[in-house]
């Protein structure tokens, strides 16, 4: 029997049954494929006391220790699978910002071992990510200062972003002597790595007038409660005693920026905002007696959040737009 003649013998019922069987098999295959990823952690992850990984960084932190400072513990290195073994519940903050690896080690003053500090070197993959975790954890009552543009000191700690790295140097006590040693080590690290993070365009477009010092930060995800609005640089402003903020976020394309700006506009309208007249291309919304301005320029989404009045919001938005133009950076 030839193939063509064989086909002609297949009845409609047989064809339906055949497709039914194939669909059933496909459903079973899909089910197996899906279920195989649902491991029971009680069975697959019962390592009760995992050993700390050995440091594998490209350079040894011990080599950066200044005179009079000696290693106090073995080096440790953690990756995304093991970061929780070091910092537990705070690990998710780093995961959301693109964490790559952590290298940590304790050092003590040779003449007083009770004075020790631990250095945490978080490799965040990019300077943006490093600045994100730096800004999200920035403490109040901080003292500016340190070896990089983005650094600050507390009585027992030094915190800084440098290139793709976020560093914490945490002292066991609030000691000037100890923190001086930690500062020297941070400086040595910066010298070894080179470069800095100040070249991020979004950081440079916030006008200085009215800007609250050290208020620039990077929100890694869901800024202002808007799903998908990630990697958003924000800055706080003061105007006649009232506070408001501005934000700038770069998207992958002009179209993505346009869609994001529309999403933000719709978000505020959905929550009761009233659209106001504004310049072409700018959405101006009155919501709860504050003003939102949203627009996009090239790959950038730009906005002013909770401004006290329309004029103030539009003035700041215009300044940011002008700065972006001056920077000759449309994100492409």
């Amino acid at each position, binding site marked *: *029997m030839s193939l063509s*003649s*064989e086909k002609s*013998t297949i009845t409609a019922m*047989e064809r339906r049954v055949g497709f039914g069987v194939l669909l059933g098999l496909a459903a079973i295959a899909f089910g197996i494929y899906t279920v195989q990823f649902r491991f029971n*952690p*009680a*069975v*697959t*992850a*019962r*390592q*009760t*006391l995992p050993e*700390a990984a050995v440091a594998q960084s490209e350079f040894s932190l011990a080599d950066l220790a200044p005179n009079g400072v000696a290693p106090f*513990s073995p080096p440790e290195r953690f990756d995304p699978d093991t970061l*929780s*073994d*070091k*910092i*537990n*519940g*705070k*690990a*998710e*903050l780093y995961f959301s910002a693109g964490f790559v690896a952590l290298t940590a080690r*304790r050092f003590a003053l040779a003449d007083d071992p009770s004075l*020790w500090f*631990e250095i945490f070197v978080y490799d965040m993959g990019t300077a943006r990510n490093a600045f994100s975790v730096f800004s999200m*954890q920035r*403490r*109040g*009552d*901080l003292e500016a200062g340190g070896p990089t543009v983005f650094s600050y000191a*507390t*009585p*027992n*700690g030094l*915190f800084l972003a440098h290139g793709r790295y976020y560093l*914490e140097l*945490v*002292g*066991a*006590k*609030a000691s000037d002597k100890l923190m001086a040693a930690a500062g020297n080590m941070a400086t040595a690290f910066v010298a070894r790595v080179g470069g800095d993070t100040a070249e991020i365009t979004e950081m440079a477009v916030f006008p200085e007038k009215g800007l609250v010092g050290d208020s620039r930060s990077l929100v890694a995800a869901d800024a202002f409660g808007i799903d998908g609005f990630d990697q958003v640089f924000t800055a706080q402003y003061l105007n006649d005693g009232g506070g408001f903020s501005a934000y700038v976020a770069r998207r992958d394309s002009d179209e993505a920026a346009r869609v994001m700006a529309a999403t933000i506009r719709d978000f505020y309208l959905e929550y009761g905002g009233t659209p106001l007249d504004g310049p072409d291309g700018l959405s101006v919304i009155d919501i709860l007696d504050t003003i939102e301005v949203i627009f996009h320029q090239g790959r950038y989404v730009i906005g002013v959040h909770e401004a006290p009045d329309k004029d103030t919001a539009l003035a700041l938005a215009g300044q940011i737009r002008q700065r972006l133009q001056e920077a000759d950076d449309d994100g492409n």
Partner: protein
Amino acid sequence: MTGINRREFIQRSVKAGLVSASALGAGWWLHDTAPPALEPSARALAGLPDFSRPYDGRPAMAIAKGTDRETLVMRAIGALGGMARFVRPGDRVVVKVNAAFASAPAICATSHPELVTAVVKACFNAGAADVVVTDNPINDPASCFRLTGIGPAAEAAGGRVALPTADQFAGVTLAGARLIRDWPVLVGPLGDADCLIGLAALKDHHRSGASMTIKNWYGLLGGRRNVFHQDIHTIITELAALVRPTLVILDAVTAMMHNGPTGGSVSDLARTNTLIAGVDPVAVDAAGAEILGRELSGLPHLRQAADAGLGTLDYRTLNPVNVP
């Protein structure tokens, strides 16, 4: 089927047989006869012993104000009826501290050594035969107990530090639980204990909103427990059901207000000058949440625990004793 002769039928049957045999053979060849190795626990334990004491009419909770931890804890426990209410002569006591991180006491990420000393001493003064101080830290256990000062403090007061070793864990299943099912739990120190005292520090927590006395039981879990961070409120609620302590103590003399649970800077801390002791962990944590400035809506595990009948969310209804 029509139009098929005997020869074709045999040919097709042979082909179908070969395909089936190939599939079966491949399955047999790929079959893994060596399943993943399990911990040597033949059978999961059904929960943990209940260390709580029957209600006897005495105060359920005391809130002490001040700055000296030793003084505060003695006053608070005194207001509850004294340590003799909880520890009987000859009892074996387990003190579950928070030694999660190998950080200095000044960071306040762990139980304060002064408080450990005071509680261990109080247990012995009440007639305890043995006081074991334990935890399953995040970091290397020996370093954690040493650098936090908890180990030396416990031993200085006559207590014993029980570091978690693999043989101290056993699979535990909590009836009706979704997460604690044949999960390794640090049961070794609890095996012959008569009393269980939880000693927690009041802290912000990036995932759960706050770390207090119930969250402190997280340190009894073994395995890759970080998987529970994805469902943090459920696991804390289940811990509230799993662990029924004799007494819990929440150290809020200095609270970690931000950047918890690890902190790292003394600027994350605030002097809140309070210590809370009680027999109802939900109530104690509800009071702690106020000090930390957290709304209960942001701590759903407390409401879930209360709804499950594991404690009292409105702690004021317990008429806590305020100790000046």
